[in-house]
């Protein structure tokens, strides 16, 4: 095309030709990815205000579930710090559920809605879409975590004695980064496994709660706990946060929080890298098998 740029509804950004239009600078690529994150977060955030049932079902009722485990310890007349363990575990449950239901499982749902092929036909990276979903889900999860922590502390008399706030915050952020990285790996696997995805997502709730020590220190699981600390970000992050938030409580044989923070750094890097790789590999595999567009598989 030559001449002055045409300004009309039909023309966006005039370029000389298709080859030029396809050649994006690094800056443009990066900016597009950020905009894609923003774009995908938008419907999720918007949905929060348009349909408010989540306040009851995703914030208040789960708080009652956490309360049930508090009362189990009360029935056993357990030491008071155990109630704190349950409250902290209940808060972190919110993020794990967000990762597996609102991110990992989501691509499977998008395929059924017909959005998945539109995502793959667009020039952005699917990782940006997943980040966008995560950002949107983080709002609900954070609110749920805050309610559990605040109300749990107030109602059940939990007292925190934090040894290092910066380390606690860093561990929290690294835990989120690594579990969201793990969620992206799961999302790519679910691209291929289709209907099994929903059931495998269910398989990743209670068993993960168990090996991650959501309601008790993971060190009490012995070898199983050690394996969990080595591989499951929720387990190692939760254990580190417990040691930092309840400084007087015994450690039950797990590494000190500084070491666990380093483990989380490693997990974050590895999981995000593996996620990047697996999303690419599995996209190619899904294109070969036709699973990007085949529904009900």
């Amino acid at each position, binding site marked *: 095309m030559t001449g002055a740029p045409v300004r009309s509804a039909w023309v966006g950004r005039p370029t000389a030709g298709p080859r030029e239009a396809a050649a994006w600078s690094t800056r443009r690529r990066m900016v597009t990815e950020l905009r894609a994150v923003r774009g995908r977060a938008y*419907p*999720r955030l*918007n*949905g929060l205000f348009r*349909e408010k*049932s*989540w306040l009851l*079902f*995703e914030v208040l*009722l*789960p708080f*009652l*579930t956490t*309360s*049930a*485990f508090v*009362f*189990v*310890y*009360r*029935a*056993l*007349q*357990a*030491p008071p710090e*155990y109630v704190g363990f349950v409250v902290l575990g209940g808060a972190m449950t919110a993020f794990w*559920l967000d990762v597996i*239901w*609102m991110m990992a499982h989501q691509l499977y*749902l998008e395929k*059924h*809605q017909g959005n998945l092929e539109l995502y793959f036909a667009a020039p952005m990276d699917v990782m940006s879409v997943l980040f966008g979903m995560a950002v*949107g889900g983080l709002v609900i999860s954070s609110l749920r975590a805050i309610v559990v922590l605040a109300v749990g502390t107030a109602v059940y008399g939990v007292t925190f004695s934090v040894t290092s706030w910066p380390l606690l915050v860093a561990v929290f952020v690294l835990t989120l980064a690594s579990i969201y990285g793990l969620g992206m790996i799961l999302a790519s696997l679910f691209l291929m496994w289709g*209907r*099994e995805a*929903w*059931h*495998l997502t*269910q*398989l990743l*709730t*209670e*068993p993960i*709660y*168990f090996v991650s020590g*959501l*309601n*008790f*220190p993971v060190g*009490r*699981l012995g070898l199983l706990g050690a394996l969990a600390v080595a591989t499951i970000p929720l387990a190692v992050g939760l254990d580190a946060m417990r040691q930092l938030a309840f400084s007087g409580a015994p450690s039950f044989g797990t590494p000190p929080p500084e070491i666990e923070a380093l483990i989380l750094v490693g997990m974050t890097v590895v999981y995000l890298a593996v996620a990047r790789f697996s999303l690419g590999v599995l996209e190619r595999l899904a294109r070969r098998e036709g699973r990007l567009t085949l529904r*009900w598989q």
Partner: protein
Amino acid sequence: MSTEVPAGAPAATRALGLGPIGLSGWDGFDPTRTRGRGWSDLWRSYRTAVRLGWEMEANWTDPLLFFIHSIAQPVSSALILIVMLEIVGGAASRELRGYVVTGSALWSIVISGVGGLAWSVLDDRETYRMLRYLYVSPSDFLVVLLGRGTARIAIGAMGASITLAVGIALLGIPFDPGRVNWPLLAVSMVLGLAAIVAGGVLMAAVCLHARQEAWSYPEAVAGALFLVTGAVFPLAVLPSAVQLVGLAMPLTWWLAAVRLALFPDGPSSLAGTGTAWAALAGPVPPDAGQTLFALLVTGALGMLAAAIVFRASERRAKDRGLLDQTTGS
């Protein structure tokens, strides 16, 4: 080039043994077709929906993975509680071991039942886009949902049975088959399942109006009920006002009845010093008759409420055009 129906078509089709509009063996509108066949139709709809539900729940993977999936959740839930008991230790832990395993095992049926119908609504509306076709078919919509939910409840029941078996075989829960009150067990299971299904119908009513992300709602509700029904700890631990809420729930009486049937000498979830039950009926725990009666009354009220709420929700959804819309964010 166009093709035209020859002028003598009606005669020609009749000559071929076809009706006036060319359909074999049909000479016009048959008004008897609009009359249903009552229970026969309901049973056929239910049976077909059960089969459909089973096909969808059971064919997603190989049998081994299916088996693992079915038992992983209830067994893990039980293990979480067992570990909690172990790390605290003491007499209370030993006494409550059978209590928590039973409650945890039975809870998988509750989740399957409460979630089964609700997930069917979401699945059919969002994933398969079949909800509108089910709705406009002559089959009763609620009956179809009940059928779909039955498969999930069956899988939940399988998980519950295996968890109990694991608890008895591996976790040292004392169990004497000779002391089991089998009639009480049978009646309480029937009444309890009806109450669970009523809970599922209520959740389905909610999900007719909720968006796609409502997948987690049934589990959230089940989690809240977990607190007030004495599933894993006696109601005595809760504040009195909350205990009263628990006493009004059919699930509370169902769990108590099953425990009474399986472990007659085990701790009661309802009685104890300072409990709401003690304030209402004295220090003696409820016996089998009282438990079943309470289960029957609360369950019947629950089913009535569920039916009313579901029909109202269905009408509202139809009024707002929600039966065939997809949501999602």
